């Protein structure tokens, strides 16, 4: 069974999804960071495929992507790294990236390779819903890959329902108008929005992303969804002092307020 699906069957709250850019800070760090996160009790790893023009990301993630590309990261290397990771880890693993990368690799070939190396799901923020439905819905079912679409405070209800019907895995609830890493804290209008979404009683679980950076924002997000996604804040932490495992540990402990680790 798909690792993401089974996670959400097992666990319904406080799910922590951590994003990081593959190949950052160093080309071969992917492996160590993933295992480090697993060791800290993270639930899902969202691996960013570094891209030259990441429209939907903020400067921190863009910068990490540029570094990764300079380090020599390619999709082939990334798939090999995931293959190796899968020898040691059964953590749910999502690939996040831009659709141009998929097209240029060859769309079918790309998704099949995902499956083969042990990727569980995809987030492709610029893949249009109708293109997915028309071209890939069936394929994803066959390959047992999940797809997570985003919703925002501006997404109308009818579209949320449509997204809910196509999403497998979880719905990515964009917390605000701000691109990843752009703002701090959670505003009242966001709470209203979370409540509105909850009231819709969607069939998919939800993870809240964008602007989740610390224990406080993580906790609030978890009140209104099954869990949350942390991206920029973790990338920033990776650039800090200490050894890689130390940095990871310190960051995740902070999010979970220590006592939760290994719980």
């Amino acid at each position: 069974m798909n690792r993401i699906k089974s996670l959400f069957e097992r666990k319904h709250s406080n799910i922590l999804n951590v994003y990081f850019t593959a190949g950052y800070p160093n080309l071969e760090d992917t492996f160590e960071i993933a295992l480090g996160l697993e060791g800290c009790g993270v639930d899902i790893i969202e691996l960013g495929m570094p891209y030259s023009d990441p429209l939907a990301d903020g400067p921190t993630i863009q910068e990490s992507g540029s570094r990764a590309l300079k380090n020599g990261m390619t999709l082939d290397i990334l798939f090999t790294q995931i293959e190796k990771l899968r020898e040691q880890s059964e953590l749910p693993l999502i690939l996040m990236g831009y659709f141009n990368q998929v097209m240029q690799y060859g769309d079918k070939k790309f998704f099949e390779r995902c499956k083969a190396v042990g990727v569980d799901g995809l987030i492709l923020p610029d893949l249009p819903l109708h293109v997915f439905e028309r071209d890939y819905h069936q394929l994803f079912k066959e390959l047992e890959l999940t797809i997570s679409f985003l919703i925002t405070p501006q997404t109308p209800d009818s579209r949320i329902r449509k997204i809910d019907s196509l999403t497998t895995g979880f719905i990515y609830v964009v917390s605000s108008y701000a691109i990843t890493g752009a703002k701090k804290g959670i505003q009242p209008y966001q709470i209203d929005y979370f409540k509105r979404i909850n009231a819709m009683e969607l069939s998919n679980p939800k993870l809240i992303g964008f602007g989740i950076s610390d224990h406080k924002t993580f906790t609030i997000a978890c009140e209104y969804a099954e869990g949350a996604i942390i991206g920029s804040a973790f990338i920033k932490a990776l650039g800090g002092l200490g050894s890689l495992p130390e940095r990871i540990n310190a960051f995740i402990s902070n999010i979970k307020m220590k006592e939760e680790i290994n719980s």
Partner: protein
Amino acid sequence: MIHPATNSAYQVDDLGFYGEFGGSYIPEMLYHNVEYLRKNYLNIIYEDQFQKEFKDLLKNYVGRPTPLYFAKRLSSHFGTNIWLKREDLNHTGAHKVNNTIGQILLAQRLGKKRIIAETGAGQHGVATATVCALKGIECIVYMGSVDIERQAPNVSRMKMLGAKVIPAESGSKTLKDATNEAIRDWINNPEDTHYIIGSVVGPHPYPDMVARFQSVISEEMKWQLKEQIGSENPDAIIACVGGGSNAAGAYYHYLDNENVRLVAVEAAGLGIHSGESAATSVLGTKGIIHGSRTLLMQTEDGQIIEPYSLSAGLDYPGIGPLHSHLIQTGRAEAISITDDEAMDAVFLCSRKEGIIPALETAHAIAALEKMIYKDSDHIVINLSGRGDKDLGTFIKYIADHEQD
């Protein structure tokens, strides 16, 4: 004047595609605004009141119609009949303002209070800052820091007009990156902000909408040619293509008239295969950039390649989806022109006609050197802009070449 789409093989379809190019590949954060635009743009821009205001501003503010000028000395130089469509005479000095006038009227009707734009050569930035001043609306322009340096006069103009110019420091620090930053701004400010894209690029409906606003160019060409040569149809229309808005406007009313050759001129920088080029139609493969499926310069791994051209307005790794379609179907011919060839054309046009063209435009003029044509042909070059913004580049080029 612009008209609703006629039945045409070269018009956008319901999903925003020209053949296999176009569409709307955007993150959800942009969906609401783009979708709202898509649903409403035709209704809004063909409203009587909109058309009245649009035409009035084009006439009384922008200075349209722009002349279609028979370039006598260029004609005898090239041994054919050359007509220059004088978009350089528009207020602000290029075709860009046709589009920004349209979009500011649209933004007002959408109730937007804040305008963002990207700019390469700065002409679109100036044209946007201009219409924002005209309407008293806040204006933020993103511009690559490389372009800020090489198009300094336009940066000063934007500031004079009250716009805020924000440097884009990522990637090649040029047009592509400025566009990324503008899109991010829009994502962060979806409620009060309208994004005025400066070319026929971006997600549907932008390419079609911008082409419609620019179509006034070929609309005027038709009656002007009729008046001057007795026929609406030239033998060829040449235009430079950065994103492709001036070309789209110059081709628009001739798209279905296969007797009229359409020539799209791209920047080959230091040479098409020099590694420093922006010749998308040769070097590009199908991909997605700024929300649109189109020809795109990219690596095997789907990373967008940083383009190069001496000209800041052609320094873009993609082309508008309409142009990908026109080139793919053979409706348009693509020609690539190097920096040096373009500079020669700058001097030629300045000395022969007393018109200093924009560096972008010079690429279109240079294309004549590479085309086959007859003595009796009537060829229209879309003179997309004036070269004032490029004087620094020209003078430096002269100095560098005197040292050789």
